[in-house]
């Protein structure tokens, strides 16, 4: 598969234990794919480890949180003229073998975003029980807003085309972006598709979303979704071309 104009974006924060394996695995599987690790001001050796492994590194001077970190990568990709960006997590949970399937779906369907979602074979949602409840809650909440069901609204395994990239480079939800992004897509009349993927356990490190933060996560995302719904301009679906 050709990876012309495709950038692999890997947001990372304190991922020195996993980032090298992630980069090397991608290089072995997809030698032509450009890899950009966006380091969110890690306190450990993430930057050096990623550079040594052979990835280009965009190093943020201050910690911005996931949304700001991912958007920095989108901005650079847009500036450098990439047409498609695939985002995977820096902890090794996403299998790079699935990247071509996401890109193929993006091209075949003509949709703006493809999300790699956890399939049943990978053991469903492997996360903290409180967050699991939150995810199910958001699936129920998003269904009437999006007009369709979404199986894994928190997945960070995403491929975006140039239209979505142009939008995300200028406007992207900060902090916990995944769920809000779906509402932003709907507001922009963008389409998304889901591709079942086998998720793995993180190779090293710990998730930043702890039990206590899960409550904050739910409230924060709920507010973000609500605000984005308020921004809907009421125009009927399918009559705009995004932007």
């Amino acid at each position, binding site marked *: 598969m050709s990876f012309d104009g495709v950038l692999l974006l890997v947001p990372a924060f304190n991922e020195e234990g996993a980032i090298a394996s992630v980069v090397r695995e991608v290089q072995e599987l997809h030698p032509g794919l450009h890899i950009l690790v966006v380091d969110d001001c890690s306190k450990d050796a993430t930057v050096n480890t990623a550079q040594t492994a052979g990835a280009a590194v965009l190093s943020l*001077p*201050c910690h911005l949180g996931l949304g700001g970190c991912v958007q920095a990568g989108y901005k650079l990709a847009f500036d450098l003229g990439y047409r498609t960006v695939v985002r995977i997590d820096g902890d090794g949970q996403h299998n790079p073998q699935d990247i071509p399937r996401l890109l193929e779906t993006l091209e075949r369907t003509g949709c703006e975003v493809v999300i790699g979602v956890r399939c049943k074979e990978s053991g469903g949602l492997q996360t903290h029980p409180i967050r699991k409840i939150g995810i199910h809650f958001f699936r129920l909440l998003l269904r009437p807003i999006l007009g369709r069901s979404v199986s894994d609204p928190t997945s960070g395994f995403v491929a975006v085309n140039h239209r979505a990239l142009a939008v995300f480079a200028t406007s992207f939800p900060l902090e916990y972006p995944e769920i809000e992004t779906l509402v932003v897509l709907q507001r922009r009349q963008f389409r998304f598709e889901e591709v079942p993927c086998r998720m793995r356990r993180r190779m090293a490190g710990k998730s930043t979303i702890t039990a206590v933060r899960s409550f904050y996560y739910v409230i924060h995302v709920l507010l973000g979704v609500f605000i984005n719904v308020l921004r809907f301009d009421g125009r009927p679906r399918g009559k705009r071309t995004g932007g």
Partner: protein
Amino acid sequence: MERLLDVIAILSLVLLIVVLRSLRREHIRVEHSVSWLAACAALLILSRSHWLLDRASAFLDLTEPAIALIFMILAVFLGVFYRFSRVISELKDMNITLTQKVAILEYKLRMNEEEQK
């Protein structure tokens, strides 16, 4: 009631001094001190003017001017907090944009240097 008004007058004077000291030491910027100075002035005037306080409590349909005063203190400081929430949010947005720009410029600079080598 008189003691409450005296205490509020003293507190507003203390707040005024703290704000002015912070301004002199450049701990807060002039444009961000205006809200606090206006709040201090409003409290001082209200606590020293029975006429104004009586008018305010009559307007709010309160028999006790002390409750009207507490209500107005709350309103003034809620206004100040709201203004600073907006300022902080705006600064955070600017900080994110600036951080991303610095990182992207550094990245491009590094790439150029490597190409020249």
